[in-house]
């Protein structure tokens, strides 16, 4: 199973000191976080994509991930999320393939639609077409990575004739793709149709909601013939802050919580802890809560923690990553494997595992569903 951190690169004032880091400092801190994650034995670093303050997550994640690739050797590099709606799929195909070459096969990506409405018009898109954009753009991305010469005509992008993406995917094997969505069933359906991974942010909403979305994805993954529902590739987010005692953790974290972007100045730390997976306490409490995720989402393959937002200073963030790597994740690895049935994969697909599947791998097909398609076709004509 893979464990890691994900960041949205928010530049937020530290509410305890009134200090706000510069954009330059925040950009450098994201590199330090990734390097630290590898140093303490975590598996994944994932960055968001943003186009507006207060975020300095890259507008194009491969820029940051390419830098991190040069400073690490083992860490998997991913996104949370790459905007499939407003980016040109041709540029995504080129840039992430390039990143895969640079990183020696350590890159994958997670697609999302974004959370800031004006990004659509800024890039000449219509927010009301969010789902159709995600569907069409991703299908083109799949074809670009799988077909030598692409002829394409769609609704959203200028046509292509005889186009070959350059560089092509490393070893001819496209990166593994996750699809992230908090509440759109169409995105869970999309991930299931292609046999891709499904990631639920699992931070802002209650666990019953996460459970329903993951269950939908698993059921449709099986429907399309990619394997049993429990074998579908699931990733979850989580948010933690740890100290030696629960009281100390709450004392330190509370001002950051109370002033955080999105939910600050809203619910209390206590009610948010009760209603969402947020855990503020000892490493043991984080272990217990995180193991509980599998009770509602099933045995899963990737866990990403958010530890660096709301103005938390870098030294404190690095300390949290240290605790994760030394005290939390080793136990989680052992306990998650102990409960995982033999036929459920531990790791999500990696470049190495996909290469090992050989030339007949379903991953190399644009559409690899082996079941459920006739039903779908009938529903079209009805």
């Amino acid at each position, binding site marked *: 199973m893979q464990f890691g951190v994900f960041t949205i690169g928010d530049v937020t004032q530290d509410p305890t000191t009134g200090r706000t880091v510069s954009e330059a400092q925040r950009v450098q801190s994201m590199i330090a976080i990734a390097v630290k994650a590898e140093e303490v034995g975590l598996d994944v670093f994932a960055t968001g994509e943003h186009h507006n303050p207060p975020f300095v997550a890259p507008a194009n994640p491969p820029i940051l991930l390419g830098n991190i690739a040069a400073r690490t050797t083992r860490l998997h590099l991913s996104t949370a999320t790459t905007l499939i709606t407003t980016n040109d799929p041709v540029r995504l195909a080129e840039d992430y393939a390039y990143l895969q070459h640079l990183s020696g096969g350590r890159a994958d990506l997670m697609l999302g639609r974004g959370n800031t409405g004006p990004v659509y018009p800024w890039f000449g898109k219509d927010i009301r077409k969010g789902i159709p954009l995600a569907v069409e753009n991703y299908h083109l991305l799949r074809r670009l990575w799988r077909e030598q010469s692409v002829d394409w005509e*769609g609704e959203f992008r200028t046509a292509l004739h005889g186009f070959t993406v350059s560089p092509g995917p490393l070893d001819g094997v496209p990166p593994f793709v996750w699809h992230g969505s908090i509440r759109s069933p169409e995105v869970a*359906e*999309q991930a299931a149709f292609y046999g891709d991974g499904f990631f639920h942010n699992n931070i802002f909403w209650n666990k019953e909601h996460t459970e329903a979305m993951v269950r939908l994805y698993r059921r449709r993954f099986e429907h399309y013939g990619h394997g049993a529902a429990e074998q579908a590739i699931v990733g979850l987010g989580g948010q933690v802050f740890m100290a030696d005692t629960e009281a100390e953790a709450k004392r330190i974290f509370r001002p950051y919580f109370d002033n955080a972007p999105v*939910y600050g100045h*809203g619910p209390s730390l206590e009610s948010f802890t009760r209603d969402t997976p947020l855990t503020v306490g000892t490493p043991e409490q984080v272990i217990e809560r995180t193991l509980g995720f599998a009770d509602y989402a099933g045995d899963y393959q990737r866990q990403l923690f958010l530890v660096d937002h709301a103005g938390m200073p870098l030294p404190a963030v690095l300390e949290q990553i240290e605790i994760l790597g030394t005290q939390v994740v080793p136990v989680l690895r052992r306990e998650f494997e102990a409960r995982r049935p033999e036929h459920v994969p531990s790791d999500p697909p990696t470049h190495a595992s996909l290469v090992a599947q050989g030339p007949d791998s379903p991953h190399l097909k*644009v559409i690899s569903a082996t079941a459920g398609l006739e039903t779908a076709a009938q529903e*079209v004509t009805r």
Partner: protein
Amino acid sequence: MRSTPRSSPPLRSSDTSRGPHARRVVVLSAGLSQPSSTRLLADQLAGAVDAEISARGEAVAIQTYELREFAVDLATMMATAGMPTARLDELRRVVAAADGLIVVTPVFAASYSGVFKMFCDALDPHALDGMPVLIAATAGTPRHALVLDHAMRPLFSHLHAVVMPTGVFAATEDFGGGAAGRQLSSRVARAAAELATQVVSGGVSVAGFTPPAPTRDAGVGIPAEVTPFSVLLGGHTGS
């Protein structure tokens, strides 16, 4: 409706209906004080609707909710980019599943109260499609009477509800005796009769000539059935 409890019934309470096919009418009262004249009007309307539906030979189950009790849940939802609470989800389910609504708000600053609007903001855009709704309001003076037609009626039209022609406005003085009180009673009776007719007929459509009743969406959870991906994909293929 003397026996109506002063606080909202438990959300997961067993159905108080009088039979398997009882019509379900939900009353939303947005008063903040206790006792509240808004609740007083809500109870009068509920009692009149109960009598009118019963007079048409149909069973009815009426459940009354005080929106004040959901104020914290609503604030949480608004302050977390939409995270629903379990109680609020349950109320949204109950409302979308009703056969008719009675909504009553006090007038605050020349319009419906904030908590009343917060609840409407928390509804799915399709939660009230085709829903028969009786609008009512209370205020300290009769000079606020236009709140019904300048604030509430456009709001529920926006939500695709079927708003009864008669709205009921009660100023404090209308709860007294004399002509004002008698006129309130007659407005209550007329509005209740309109809602009862809609609730019993099952909506606006005439059987055989119109599309089936609208499917409302409580906006709670995720749908059980998804659009198959091939439909979303719209004919794109690949090798």
